[in-house]
């Protein structure tokens, strides 16, 4: 699905990631952890084509990002649901419209009555906030909306960057269950988080691999989790 092959990345200074390889096989469930600033967000951006490796190869669905123009990246983005770390929204649209945005830009007609949309808003507990504008939402509500937006178009892969950073334990379990549910239906999931409790909770429900960025490279985390 998504493959990083001997990838290096630097923002201009020293290399943040180097000789890093990762394969997200179809239906796999991965956690990416490590202290803040080690490059989790950067690695996710490499996985959805927002950044291009400074060395090595990143392949999205078999195609090297190097050979993809912006339109090709955009089209592959429709097969990848992304929960951005700072949950960017369009502030002039309602929450429901924001959640449905991936469908809108793909040219699919949607209405406020759309069954999928309502179910999804119900799952993340935002039914009553459907008509609110993003600036009126709390941090937790924004994260739930971002997750709903990432999964609404039935993507093959979900990349979630700290999806539970601002929500309480109960809600984080709920969001996790949504992702596990999707994974059982075959969706490939990668969650970047520094929340070890969340990882432990997940490991009891799903065979997840836990990766850690150490010395600019990926390592499998031990059983100590």
């Amino acid at each position: 699905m998504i493959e990083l092959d001997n990838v290096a990345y630097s923002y201009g200074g020293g290399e943040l990631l180097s000789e890093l390889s990762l394969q997200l096989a179809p239906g796999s469930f991965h956690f990416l952890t490590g202290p803040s600033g080690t490059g989790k967000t950067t690695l996710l951006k490499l996985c959805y084509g927002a950044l291009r490796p400074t060395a090595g190869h990143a392949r999205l669905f078999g195609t090297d990002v190097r050979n993809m123009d912006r339109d090709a990246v955009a089209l592959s983005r429709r097969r990848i649901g992304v929960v951005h770390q700072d949950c960017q929204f369009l502030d002039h649209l309602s929450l429901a419209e924001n959640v449905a945005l991936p469908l809108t830009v793909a040219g699919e007609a949607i209405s406020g009555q759309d069954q999928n949309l309502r179910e999804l808003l119900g799952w993340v507990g935002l039914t009553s906030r459907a008509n609110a504008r993003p600036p009126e939402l709390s941090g937790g509500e924004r994260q739930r909306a971002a997750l709903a937006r990432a999964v609404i178009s039935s993507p093959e892969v979900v990349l979630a960057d700290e999806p539970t950073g601002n929500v309480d334990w109960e809600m984080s379990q709920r969001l996790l269950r949504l992702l596990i549910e999707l994974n059982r239906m075959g969706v490939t999931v990668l969650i970047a988080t520094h929340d070890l409790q969340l990882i432990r909770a997940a490991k009891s429900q799903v065979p997840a691999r836990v990766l850690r960025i150490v010395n600019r490279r990926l390592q499998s985390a031990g059983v100590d989790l």
Partner: protein
Amino acid sequence: MSLQTLVALARGDKAADRVVPPTGFTARLTVFAAAVMAFLAVFALALSLAAGRLATSWGDELARASTVRISAPVGQVAAQTEAALRLLQQTPGVASARALSEAEQQALLEPWFGPDLPVSELPVPQLIEVTETSKGYDAAGLRLRLQAEVPGAVLDDHARWRKPLVAAAARLTVLGWVSGLLIAAAMGAMVTLAANAALSANAQVIAVLRLVGATDAYIARAFVRRFTLRTLGGAAVGTVLGIAAVALLPSGDETAGFLTGLSFRGWHWGIPVLVPLLAAAVGFAATAVAARRVLGGLS
């Protein structure tokens, strides 16, 4: 631009239109500038068409009425007139030549000398009216031959005063069209600036749209459609005002002068309708180019 693009543009897509936030100030400025440009364009058009009409009518009427004047001792006038007519009929570019009758000459002189002038008894020159073919004759050559064969004949081809006027009118026509082109270019520049500003101000929106899989074409369309409709709307208002202003100009006979003839005639009233359409086309092209450039830069 494909037909499909045009259809999509005309039909619109409510959801797609909404993904770009409304920008009140830029929008109003664009509409206002489009209206002003269209207003000016209508005037340039009226000027150009009026000057064109003058150039044509002066050119046509005056070019077809040169005269040959025969001033000779009374006894020789008839013979020289004959000779001049013969010569004229053989001259390439002369469609016809006709000696004015006494009555016609009298009518010509009447405004100056009154109705009782005995033309036949006065040494009034005989006039020959020469009508040119559309190609015209070689005035210098004709003059030389007349000089050689008909000593009393003088060719008056009006060229001395007519040509600069016709040339000026023709030049004015061209200037009118050039002004139209410049107005279109200014409109393009203005829309480009406005579209650039709107695109740059919405970098964050563009980033979100890309995050959820919007292609450049999709993002560009949202902006292009908006700016095309704005220029179309603004230009339509400006055109209506421009036509009204032209219609309200005091009118006069075309011969009364250029200033009172500065209005549309007949089907020419339909031409300004093209102004908003052209403005929309310019707005479309300018925004499309700006969008391609800005989206190419924001990656």
